[in-house]
C-alpha cells in the first residue's frame, strides 16, 4: 500500500487534487470494505463462535471476510476471548505484523472489558483496548455469530469514511499507544516466554 500512501500526499498538494483524491477514496473504501480479511485471534470460548461464524451455516465468506491465520494477510483482527497477561505480548506482536490500514474488533465481554474476569482475578487483561486501538466493541458472553456479522458490517461503514490521504484518515496516522499507557487498571506485563 506504500504506493497509494505516497499518491495521497502527492495529490493533495496539486491544485484540484482534492477532487481526484475524493474519487480515489471512494474506490479504495469500496474495495477495502468488500474484503475485510479476519485475523482470528481466538483464545477462549468466543473462538468457538468465531469458527461457527465462518462455517457453512453462517458463512462469512459471502461478506468477503475470510479467516486467515497469517497476520500479514489480514485487515481486521478479531480478538475473540480472554487475553491474559501472558498472552498480551503475543497479541500485540501479531497486531504489529498486520499491514496498515488495520482494524480491531473486540469480540465478547472478555476482550471488551475482562467480562466475568474483571473483578477478582490476577491474570486477565481488563479489555484488549488496554493495548490495542479497538474499532468495534461486541458485547456478549459469547456473542452470537449474527452479532459478529453485524460487527463486520458496522466496521465496513467505518471503513467507508476513511481516507487514504495522510492526516485525513484516523487509522493511518494514529500511532499505536505504547505498552504501559493504559487508561485504566494495570498495564499488561510481559509474559516472559510469550513470543
Amino acid at each position: 500500500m506504500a504506493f497509494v500512501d505516497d499518491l495521497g500526499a502527492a495529490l493533495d498538494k496539486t491544485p484540484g487534487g482534492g477532487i481526484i483524491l475524493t474519487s480515489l477514496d471512494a474506490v479504495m473504501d469500496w474495495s477495502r470494505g468488500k474484503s475485510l480479511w479476519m485475523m482470528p485471534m481466538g483464545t477462549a470460548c468466543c473462538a468457538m463462535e468465531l469458527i461457527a461464524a465462518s462455517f457453512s451455516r453462517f458463512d462469512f465468506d459471502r461478506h468477503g471476510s475470510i479467516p486467515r491465520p497469517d497476520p500479514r494477510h489480514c485487515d481486521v483482527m478479531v480478538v475473540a476471548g480472554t487475553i491474559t497477561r501472558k498472552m498480551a505480548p503475543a497479541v500485540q506482536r501479531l497486531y504489529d505484523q498486520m499491514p496498515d490500514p488495520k482494524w480491531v474488533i473486540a469480540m465478547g465481554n472478555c476482550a471488551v472489558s475482562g467480562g466475568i474476569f474483571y473483578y477478582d482475578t490476577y491474570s486477565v487483561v481488563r479489555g484488549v483496548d488496554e493495548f490495542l486501538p479497538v474499532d468495534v466493541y461486541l458485547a456478549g458472553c459469547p456473542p452470537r455469530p449474527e452479532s459478529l456479522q453485524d460487527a463486520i458490517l458496522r466496521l465496513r461503514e467505518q471503513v467507508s469514511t476513511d481516507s487514504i490521504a495522510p492526516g485525513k484518515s484516523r487509522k493511518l496516522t494514529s500511532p499505536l499507544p505504547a505498552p504501559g499507557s493504559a487508561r485504566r487498571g494495570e498495564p499488561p506485563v510481559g509474559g516472559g516466554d510469550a513470543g
Partner: protein
Amino acid sequence: MTEQTIVNIGPSHPSTHGVCRVVVTLDGEIVTHAEPIIGHLHRGIEKMAENRTYLQVVPLTDRLDYVGSMYANWAYCRAVERLAGIRVPERAEYIRVIVCELQRIASHMMGIGSTGADTGAFTAFMYAFAQRDHVVELFEALCGARLTYNYVRPGGVSMDLPEGWVEQCRAFTAQHPSAMLELDRLLFGNVIARARLKGVGVLSADDAVAWGASGPTARGSGVDWDLRRDDPYSVYPRFDFQVPLGENGDSYDRARIRLWECVESCKIIDQALDQLEPGLVKAEGLPRLLAPRPGDAYDHIESARGSLGVYLVSDGTPRPYRMKVRSPAFCNLALLPLLAEGHTLSDLVVILGSLDPVFGEVDR
C-alpha cells in the same frame, strides 16, 4: 545426527487448537523433543471460586471446558450436592444425562472435525460442525445460550424442558447415527486421512494408565475404563450402552472411537427420553445461600475428554474454601512429548489434535 533446530509453534497457531505454545526440537524433520508451554489462558478460575457463593461459581465452570460446558457444570454441582447432602429429583438426573450426552456429541464433533482439518480434510470439519449446530440449537432452546449454559445447578437444573423439545431431540438422534456413518466413510475411509493417522503417536495401554490419561485418549489404547459404567453415577446404570475401544492406540483409533461414542450417546439419549417421567427439576427446600457444614467432597464424571473431577473444601461459610479441578485435558496433554518423539513435525500437529485438548480446562 544433524544440527538440532528449535521451532516455536504458537501460542497463536491454527493447529494448536487454542493458545498452546509448543517448543519443538527437530533433527531434520524429526521431532526429538516437544515441550508444551501452557498457561496462556490461565484465568484463575479456581481462585475466583473462593470469592463467590456456591451458586455464583456455576457460570465460572462454564468457562473451563468451553467445548463441553455442561460437564463442568455437572461435576461441580455433584461435588456441591455431596458436600451439602442434597438429593436431586429423578427427572433432573434424566435431564442432566440427556444434556450431557448431547454435549458429548457436540464436543466430539469439534474433536473429530479438527482432526479432519489437521489432516487436510476440511470438508469433514464442515460436516461435523453441521451436526454440532443442531445440538447447539437444542441447547439454545433449553437455556438460551449457545455455549455457556449455566444450566445444571446444585440440586437440579435451572428450568424444565421447553414444549416440543423432546420431539426436536428425538429428530436429532434419529438422523445422527447415519450422519456418523457418512462421516466415518468420508474421513476415516479416506486414504489420505488413514495414511496421516494410522500408526502416528502410538500410546501403549500401560503408558496411558501410568500417565493418568482418561477418556477417548485412554480408550483408544484399549484401556477399558469409563466412569459411566465402572463408577456409575446418576441414572447411568439404567441404560444399555457399549464403550467403544481402540486396538492400536494411534491417532486413528483415538479419533475414530469418538465417532462411535457419539452413536452410543444417541442410544443413551433415546433410552433416557423413553424413561423420562414428569416431576420436579430442582430439589425443594434449598436455601438461597448454600453454606455446607465444614468438610470436603470430591466427585468425578466422564466428560468428553475423560474423567473430570471437582474437589471442594468447605469451612462452613457460603463460599468454597478451596476448589480444585482435576482436568482430563491437562493430563492428556502431558502425553504430547512422549507421543511426538520420533515423528515428523507435521505429525505433531495431528497428535496434538487427536488428544483434543481444550485450553480453558488445561490452564483453568
